[in-house]
Structure formats: C-alpha cells, structure tokens
C-alpha cells in the first residue's frame, strides 16, 4: 500500500523533462495504460498536504510537462494507492479521459487580467460625474468623522461607476481575445478595479498571435489598464469536474 500523488494525465508517449521532481522532492514517474499516462510521484503519508511547497510542486510538474504536451491537470491533492493509478484511475476511464484529452489536444491556456490604473480611472470618473465631483469637493478637506455619511456615499457612487465601466470595457476586451481562442471563460472577480479576468484556450499555433493581441490591447489602453498575461499553461480552467 503506497500513497501516490497524481499531478495530471497525458498521452503515453509523452516524456517529461529529465529530473522532474514533485512533492517533497520525490522523482516524477510516468505510469501508462493504453494511450494514456499519469504523472505521479510518491506522496508523503506522515503529514497532510497543503503547504506552499506542495502547491508550487504541483504546478511546476503540471506546467513543466504542459510546456510541450497536453496535460489534464488533476485537482490539487489527488492521492491514490499505487496500484489504483492503473486499476482505478486509468483503466476504467480510458475512453472518457482519452476523449477529454483529445478535445484539449494542441491547446494551451492563457490567463489575462486587466487592472484599472486607479489614479487615471478615478480621475475620469470624477471629471465625468457632477454628483461625484461635488461630493468629493465637499468631503476632501473635512475631518473624516464629520462627513462620514457623505464619504460612504461618495465611495458607493465611485464603486458603482467602476462596476459599470468594468463590465462594459471588460466585455469588449474579452470578446476581442475570444476571437483568437477556441474557448473562453470569464472568471468572476469581486474587485471593482479589475476590468478583465478571463481564461482562454488557445491553439498552440496561435499562441504568438494571441500574445500579440494582448500586447496590442495593453498599448491601446494608454496607461488606463495594467495587463497581466499568464501562460502558456495547462488548461486548468477548462477541465471540468466529473463524477
């Protein structure tokens, strides 16, 4: 009975980078069954998983392999007995897992975030809304406690404007990038200054084109929006949970 950590699934002919190590420095092995393979290593049994190093190890293994091959990432913390990798995980699900893998084959995930540059966007809001401008003038030189209600109201109006703006502009940016992707997901962010937070599934041969499109969006935003681009990554957001 040996606890085995499973990082992800890929095709049986995939060779991971040499000396790839996983959780607690254990060497990553490839267990194959039919066309499929599981990326695994020995799992620690004397402690629960969940430290910073565990999270980093999981991501490092998945994305190191995903750099050149298609990987279905497993949920963090997936542990199974060693014999179960083939008997319970791979063999009984070969067809289904193979189908999921082939849907994602040749594609990578990019995660794109656009954060409003506060100084610039708040200025736009104040300059375009008389009520906000008036409230701002009223409270700015008063002691906080004297104008508490007005300050709350000012913030509420500003947040309302930001929400309106980010939904409108975020949708436009999302649409533009979606045109180069085979699938796209809007991830919900509660931050009123986050204009865009989306994941895109992009064919590898379009990766450079996609990256250029993000660069273009950023340069067109003329300093209003700060973009962060993650990827190419394994398709974390495009692997659905299945029972």
């Amino acid at each position, binding site marked *: 009975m040996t606890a085995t950590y499973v990082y992800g699934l890929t095709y049986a002919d995939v060779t991971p980078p040499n000396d790839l190590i996983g959780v607690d420095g254990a060497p990553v092995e490839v267990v194959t069954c039919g066309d499929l393979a599981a990326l695994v290593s020995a799992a620690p049994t004397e402690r629960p998983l969940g430290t910073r190093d565990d999270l980093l190890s999981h991501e490092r293994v998945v994305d190191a392999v995903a750099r050149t091959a298609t990987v279905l990432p497993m949920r963090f913390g*997936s542990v199974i007995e060693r014999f179960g990798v083939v008997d319970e995980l791979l063999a009984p699900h070969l067809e289904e897992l193979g189908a999921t893998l082939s849907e994602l084959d040749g594609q990578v995930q990019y995660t794109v975030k656009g954060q409003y540059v506060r100084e610039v966007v708040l200025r736009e809001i104040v300059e375009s809304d008389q009520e906000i401008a008036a409230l701002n003038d009223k409270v700015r030189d008063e002691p906080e406690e004297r104008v508490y209600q007005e300050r709350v109201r000012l913030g509420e109006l500003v947040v309302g404007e930001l929400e309106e703006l980010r939904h409108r502009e975020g949708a436009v940016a999302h649409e533009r990038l979606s045109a180069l992707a085979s699938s796209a997901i809007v991830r919900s962010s509660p931050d009123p200054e986050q204009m865009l937070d989306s994941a895109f599934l992009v064919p590898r041969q379009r990766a450079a084109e996609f990256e250029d499109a993000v*660069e273009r969006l950023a340069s067109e935003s003329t300093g209003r929006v700060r973009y962060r681009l993650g990827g190419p990554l394994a398709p974390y957001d495009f692997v659905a949970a299945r029972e």
Partner: protein
Amino acid sequence: MTVASQRGGGGGVERYTGGGSSGLAEIVEMILDKGLVIDVFVRVSVVGIEILTIDARIVVASVDTFLRFAEATNRLDLYGKGKGGKDLPELMEGVMSSGAKGKTGGVIDAAAEKVGELLGGSNDDDGDDRARRRPRPRERTRERER
C-alpha cells in the same frame, strides 16, 4: 520570476509562465479549485484547502470598500493635472503598491498562512505573525472612533 515585456510601444504587459516560474499568489489562483476530480481519489489529505479557497475570495464588502474608494478619490490631485501628466506613472506606482494590489496580495498571503495554521505550522516561518497579517474589518475600528 516575472518578466515584464515592453513590446508594442509602451503598453507593457506583465508576463508569467508556469513550470516553477510563478509566485505563490499566482499558483494559488491558478490551481486551487481547478483540475480534474475523479471519485477514486482520496482527498482527505488536503486539510485546510477548502477554507483557504473561501478565505481568498473574501473581499471586504460595502462600507469598507466605499470608504477606501472615497479616500482614493479624495487623494486625487485634480488641480495639478495640467502640469502633472508626466508624473502620473510614478504616482501610480505608489498607489498601486499600497492600494488594491497590496490588499489582494494580503488576502492571499493570509489565506496561504491559514493553511500553515491548519497544518499546525509545519514550516517554521509560516506560522509566525499570522494573526497580525490577517485582514481585519475596518468598520469596527471606525465605530469606536466615532
């Protein structure tokens, strides 16, 4: 390692890639709650992760958020805009690092530390100071002031 690229004439995009080059905040967001779930797995071993996920998503809502934005709006230098155009990026650096970005980072840090806490602080420096660094609702402080 995060590589900032400056292609495309001034519209710099911050970049990160996977495979061991990203920071913890990125990783947490990237992998938690994601990935294939198959019922054959034993997931009892991941103490604390569910809580962490919830924690990371908590953004102090309503009054505190409103006051934060009221303050940021108050701080705008509306009268210096004519001459101050060029200084904006520098100004912005300060606002970003102490403002929203810093806050988000704090929440994620705190959440990550929560894991350490739940695991009984297996990593020596993960356990320290976590109470101090946890975000606190500010309404309470304010009410006392009033």
